């Protein structure tokens, strides 16, 4: 389908630019690692405590980093004349949303690929046996984060106080994602036989589907001039 091809062109462009400048990726990894470090110091050397809160810390790091990169989603457009450039092409503008969404997901996932192992080392968690489950949680959580993030980033792209508005709008929307991701991760890592990650995975999946439909539907209105 035509929308998919154009979305793919956008993903290709954004990832190519990112691969060449490595601007966002490096900054994101550093920042997230910094967050994890600071939390480790703040919480002290109690390894048992760190293990139990590792899920939360990890996702806090990912969330902060994610918000950092979101405002830059459309930055590459800004240096090339603004998002007008993309809007000028015929066809459904939803291709822009899809393209940007996929680009964000890929970028954030690649940062997490570094972050999860880093957390495993810092907090002394055994991640490898649960790698598949953690990957699944990371995927669902990242997609959920990116859906609302990409959408609100588009809405606030031309605002003067974008750096304030984006987190303000994003935070309430992210509560289910963070709750789901943090709890699921913690359950996997700490290994609680009484409880079930299934409920959180269902929450994340439902959130992803519901908000994907809503956001992609409303997207053209968000971009209207």
């Amino acid at each position, binding site marked *: 389908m035509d929308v998919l091809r154009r979305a793919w062109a956008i993903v290709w462009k954004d990832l190519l630019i990112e691969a060449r400048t490595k601007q966002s990726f490096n900054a994101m990894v550093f920042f997230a690692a910094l967050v994890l470090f600071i939390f480790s110091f703040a919480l002290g050397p109690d390894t048992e405590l760190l293990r139990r809160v590792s899920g939360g810390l990890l996702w806090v790091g990912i969330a902060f980093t994610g918000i950092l990169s979101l405002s830059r989603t459309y930055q590459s457009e800004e240096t090339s004349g603004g998002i007008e450039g993309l809007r000028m092409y015929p066809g459904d503008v939803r291709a822009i949303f899809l393209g940007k969404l996929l680009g964000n997901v890929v970028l954030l996932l690649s940062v997490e690929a570094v972050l999860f192992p880093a957390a495993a080392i810092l907090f002394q968690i055994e991640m490898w046996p649960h790698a598949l489950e953690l990957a699944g949680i990371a995927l669902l959580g990242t997609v959920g984060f990116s859906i609302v993030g990409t959408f609100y980033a588009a809405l606030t792209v031309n605002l003067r106080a974008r750096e304030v*508005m984006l987190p*303000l*709008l994003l935070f309430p929307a992210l*509560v289910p994602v963070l*709750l789901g991701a943090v709890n699921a991760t913690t359950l996997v890592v700490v290994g609680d036989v009484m409880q079930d990650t299934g409920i959180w995975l269902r929450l994340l999946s439902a959130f992803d589907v519901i908000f994907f439909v809503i956001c992609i539907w*409303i997207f053209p209105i968000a971009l209207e001039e």
Partner: protein
Amino acid sequence: MSVSAKSKPAALLGLVALAVLLAGSVVGLFVVPADAAQGDVQRLMYVHVPAAWLAFLSFFVVFLMSVLYLIQRDLRWDRVAASSAEIGVVFTVLTLALGSMWGKPTWGVWWTWDPRLTTTAIMLAIYVGYLAIRSFADDPEKRARWAAIVGIIGFANVPIVYLSVIWWRTLHQPPSSPRSVAPEILWTLMLNLAAFTLVYIYLMMRRIRLARLEGKLEERVAYHG
């Protein structure tokens, strides 16, 4: 366009609302007996519960009006939405404050992560975001469009947030069992609920009329420059 003619029904409603409010307060404070377990503090419920109910009702109105606006692009709906949001914020803050005030003597803490309270706090954040984004657009249509988007997505999120927090809490502690409610308490609650609803309608009438005048002023300024 006569200014005073419109305010007669509103003024009448205002008086009625005030009367019912007074009745509700008197009954709640003096007539109905205090709760056996909690004592007089429980009387706060007569204000807290209606406030919460109205906070959510206001938000629902915002949602409804936002959808209507996006479909019909009639600024009237936007004015109703904005008015409801402003009034809703007041009810939301009231709910939180009262909940907090009730919590301290009852449980000894200013804040608990009770699902309803937490969801209300997040709803406040969404409200604030809604009102904030309105302040960034000078063009009434753009403002209405952005606000409508935030309103719709925000509202869609509320039930999901509520469910997430319930799961989060119940997995950590058993849910508090609902006690059976004595009929006098129920009646007093209904009375105050009616009072608050009348107050809401009265405030809405006033605020919408003000919004309409503001809109006319904006048009005039835009036209004449």
